[in-house]
């Protein structure tokens, strides 16, 4: 059945996967990709799909590898940094290839609207991994490219990465999509084939050669693919663009009443080199419109040199290398290249005040309101505060201002250990429940094993909250709403060798205060687990029995 509906880019990816007959979905929530898993959680059962949140992106990818090797069609979803986490298994996956098709969605966040860490351009992983990357520019393309990704994966036995960005993943627009007939849950069969599935040397080098040959064949495919296409224009100046940058370029051309030829690249990797040569041959100037790093521009420059073509190639010399692009930035770049004058947008006059920044803050009733002020008050002067990813990042903002370093998921454990080992200073290290399960545990074991003494405070709000309330291993529910074990952080800590462990409800601020004072004196690693459900979730669940099914397990408190 064909439908036309307004969809979010991420919802369109889900529709594309359903249309391609996806059986198995895994991933880890992050912004701007989280709605993919969320949506699967809601609709998986009725569509005969199995969907889960993994403890982290590496485990998520590996689960999908197991599914693929067993003959199931799989999709993995994550934000930009997720690909860092899973890269250790991503690279060998390119060598072994897939059995049943697999699509991996990686969502970048140029301008870091909802990203700490770095402004990552994940396209760079294409070169490291030799995995095809497709770059959609709209929700319709999210749908189309996901379906195509499954086709390419099936044809060449290689995973395909759909790389989106915030303005694509969180863009809403009408999408025409097909809803396939209902299917049943599928069980596959793992047929032993160590020749394909084990990357032991010396076979691993043969696999590398096979992969490089495969990429050559995929490049030939990309040359013919309709998602790399030329549009309009009879000028000697042309544009090459991909992803959301294409939309800005089209809009800028329209605003400036220009008719330049445009080559839109749906493939980022491998690039259709012959198509690019054909496009640039008659041109004198080319402007490559892409966000963040100038990967395509560099490629085009090399392609032009190989083909002995003499033309000027513009990219980051007229466009910024940080922050997302917009129509205005692209218009200015075009004007510069064309030697035209473009009027800057009329800025309204008469504003005489500046509005100070409104910092994100803890929600009303958030249990962290009970925790952060107590820590701040009780900690002796000079205490070092470790921070980690999640709602507890707010510790670094006013009015709290207790965060001395913030890196990546789980990084507080390692850095706090390092500071504790290297100094005589006392460290209080904060981490949330989701992040603890994601990648806090190896760091905790390391701190115990190598004998440092940070006080670790787990801000356990019983959910992965920041990204929109995703189930995690600590709260007794799966993504699809089934009851499961609640893995207790205190049990994990004790099993890792932490001797001083206290679980408390931060409503009892006095108990929290006394415990901090007590544990600050310890010469070994100690841990306080402040357990209280996220206030926002609590409010969402009130009188909503449909939602409670996904979040409340009566066996778990």
């Amino acid at each position, binding site marked *: 059945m064909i439908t*036309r*509906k*307004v969809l979010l880019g991420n919802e369109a990816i889900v529709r594309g996967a359903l249309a391609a007959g996806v059986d198995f979905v895994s991933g880890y929530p992050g*912004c*701007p990709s*989280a*709605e993919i898993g969320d949506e699967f959680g809601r609709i998986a059962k009725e569509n005969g799909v199995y969907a889960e949140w993994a403890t982290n992106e590496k485990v998520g990818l590996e689960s999908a590898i197991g599914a693929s090797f067993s003959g199931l069609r799989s999709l993995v979803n994550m934000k930009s940094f997720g690909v860092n986490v899973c890269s250790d298994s991503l690279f060998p996956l390119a060598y072994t290839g897939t059995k049943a098709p697999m699509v991996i969605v990686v969502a970048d966040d140029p301008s870091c*609207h*909802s*990203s700490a860490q770095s402004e990552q351009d994940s396209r760079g992983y294409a070169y490291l991994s030799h995995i095809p990357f497709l770059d959609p520019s*709209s929700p319709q393309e999210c749908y189309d490219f996901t379906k195509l990704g499954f086709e390419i994966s099936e044809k060449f036995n290689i995973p395909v990465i759909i790389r989106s960005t*915030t*303005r694509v993943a*969180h*863009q*809403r*627009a*009408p999408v025409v999509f097909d809803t396939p007939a209902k299917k049943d849950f599928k069980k596959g069969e793992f047929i032993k084939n160590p020749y394909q599935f084990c990357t032991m040397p010396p076979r691993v080098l043969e696999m590398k050669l096979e992969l490089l040959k495969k990429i050559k064949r995929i490049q030939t495919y990309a040359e013919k693919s309709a998602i790399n296409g030329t549009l309009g224009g009879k000028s000697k100046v042309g544009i090459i663009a991909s992803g*959301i940058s294409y*939309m*800005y370029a*089209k*809009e800028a051309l*329209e*605003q400036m009443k220009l008719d330049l030829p445009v080559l839109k690249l749906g493939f980022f990797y491998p690039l259709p080199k012959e198509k690019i040569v054909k496009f640039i041959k008659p041109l004198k100037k080319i402007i490559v419109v892409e966000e963040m790093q100038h990967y395509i521009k560099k490629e085009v420059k090399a392609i032009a040199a190989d083909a002995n073509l003499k033309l000027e190639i513009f990219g980051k010399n007229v466009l910024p290398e940080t922050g997302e692009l*917009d*129509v*205005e930035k692209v218009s200015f770049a075009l004007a510069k290249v064309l030697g035209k004058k473009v009027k800057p*947008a*009329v*800025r*309204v*006059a*008469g*504003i*005489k*005040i500046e*509005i*100070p*920044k*409104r*910092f*994100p*803050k*803890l*929600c009303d009733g958030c249990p962290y309101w009970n925790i952060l002020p107590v820590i701040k008050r009780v900690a002796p002067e000079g205490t070092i505060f470790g921070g980690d990813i999640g*709602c507890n*990042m*707010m510790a670094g903002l*006013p*009015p709290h201002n207790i965060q001395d370093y913030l890196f990546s998921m789980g990084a507080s454990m390692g850095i706090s250990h390092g500071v504790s080992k290297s100094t005589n200073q006392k460290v209080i290290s904060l981490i949330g429940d989701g992040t603890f399960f994601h990648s806090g545990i190896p760091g905790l074991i390391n701190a115990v094993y190598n004998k440092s003494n940070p006080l670790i405070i787990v801000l356990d709000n019983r959910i992965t909250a*920041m*990204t*929109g309330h995703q189930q995690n291993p600590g709260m007794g529910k799966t993504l699809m709403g089934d009851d499961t074990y609640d893995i207790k952080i205190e049990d994990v800590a004790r099993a890792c060798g932490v001797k001083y462990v206290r679980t408390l409800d931060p409503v009892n601020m006095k108990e929290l205060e006394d415990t901090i004072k007590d544990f600050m004196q310890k010469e070994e690693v100690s841990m306080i687990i402040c357990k209280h459900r996220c206030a926002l979730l609590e409010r969402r669940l009130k009188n909503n029995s449909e939602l409670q099914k996904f979040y409340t397990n009566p066996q778990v408190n």
Partner: protein
Amino acid sequence: MKNFNIIMTGVGGQGIITLVTILDQACLEQGYDVKSSELHGLSQRGGSVVTHVRFGKKVYSPLVSFGGADLIVGLELAETLRDIAFAGSKTAFVINDYSMGFLGYPAEQEILDNLNRVGKNRVHLVPAVEICKKELDKDVVAGVYLLGYAVKNNLIPLKKESFIKSLETVIPQKYLDLNIKAFNLAFKQ
């Protein structure tokens, strides 16, 4: 028709994304191409939120250009002023007369003076929170009321019926009645 550009601005938690979906669906009901852009995650935790909705015959960019808004719907006073760069010389403003203060928040009168200086007689300051509280006992639908207000005053080239159809599609059954009431309320006053 030239593409119509709307900026909706406010604070995370005010329900702006629901308003975006209502607008998108209303555009679809009327046969327009539409694109919108929104932000999730960190920015939603009580931070500033700005969303873009563009519709017309064919829309490429999901973002409104600076100076390019035909309408700015502001759910909070200071946030409306923060995004003033999207306003041009003809932009209409529908502004919720409502402030959510924080440390360093400017005086309300100063915000209003600045908005009026820029928007002149195109500024509609609407006590939507107050009206919805009084008439419906719920202020969460203030944004939907403001959309109704904009339609009634011909500030959005979309039909009332398209919005009613949109609400029926977008809003869960449980809250539908309240939302339709809030939207219609603007036409009664």
